[in-house]
């Protein structure tokens, strides 16, 4: 099963990379951009057929390693 984990900085946590990219887009006259947030996407192939079980395991992975829950949120998606 293919699982996609999206990791984003929590709302209210300033994203320096997003800010820099936003600034660069403005410099290129893409003025319609109001905000940019940059995150990470982790794509994994998981050897499990039960969706709920797979999601539960990946949540554990996020809590223990993949995300730093002090500053980041994660979303798990089954592709």
């Amino acid at each position: 099963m293919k699982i996609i984990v999206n990791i984003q900085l929590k709302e209210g946590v300033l994203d320096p990379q997003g800010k820099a990219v936003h600034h660069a887009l403005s410099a290129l006259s893409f003025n319609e951009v109001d905000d940019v947030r940059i995150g990470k996407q982790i794509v994994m192939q998981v050897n499990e057929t039960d969706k709920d079980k797979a999601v539960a395991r990946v949540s554990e992975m996020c809590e223990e390693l993949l995300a730093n829950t002090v500053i980041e949120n994660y979303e798990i998606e089954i592709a």
Partner: protein
Amino acid sequence: MKVSVVVFPGTNCEMDTKYAYEKLEADVELVFHKDATLPANTDLVVLPGGFSYGDYLRSAAIAKFSPIMKDVIRFANEGGKVLGICNGFQMLLEMGLLEGAMKRNSNVHFISKYHHLRVINNENKFLQKLNIGDVINIPIAHGEGNYFIDEQGLEKLYSNNQVLLKYADENGIDKNPNGSVDSIACICNENGNVFGLMPHPERAIETLLGSSDGVKMLQGLMEG
């Protein structure tokens, strides 16, 4: 005085740290990350600076699962002194031995230069040889040194005297190079035995090479 300096793949400040503590006449041993236990007579553990595991995923995210870390956590929980410098500070945050997290510097650049720091609290082993308000000058070198903690956590740090150093200018006025909350450069845990800072005291031990302001800090951990 036995100092154990832990070396991870990608660590690059272990020799500076060893040199600095040997100059202070400590017995220093480099400990490999794959070792299961710290040397038995360890008085101080230093997690040195560098780029453990290539900073993959997040700075220090992988290092916390190295075999030696279980024993470092045990040592810290038993009241042993632990100092995390730069990447080592990031490890202490990732392991939860210190509170908060590190983000990219607010200017998104790697910053490598001397920076002034102001002593906020000296009622601890690390800064006991300095005075509150002292301004010291030691190098910083990091890309992810933007310290974050939520408001509740910040209040707790202040009320327990866990904020030890702030980034400042030469007059001691707050000056923030990386976006850290309240310009914080160094904190300790509630029990006062685990210390983390982004600046590099081990790179400031010779006046001839720019500054010796790091000596008093490193010495502090050798006493009491």
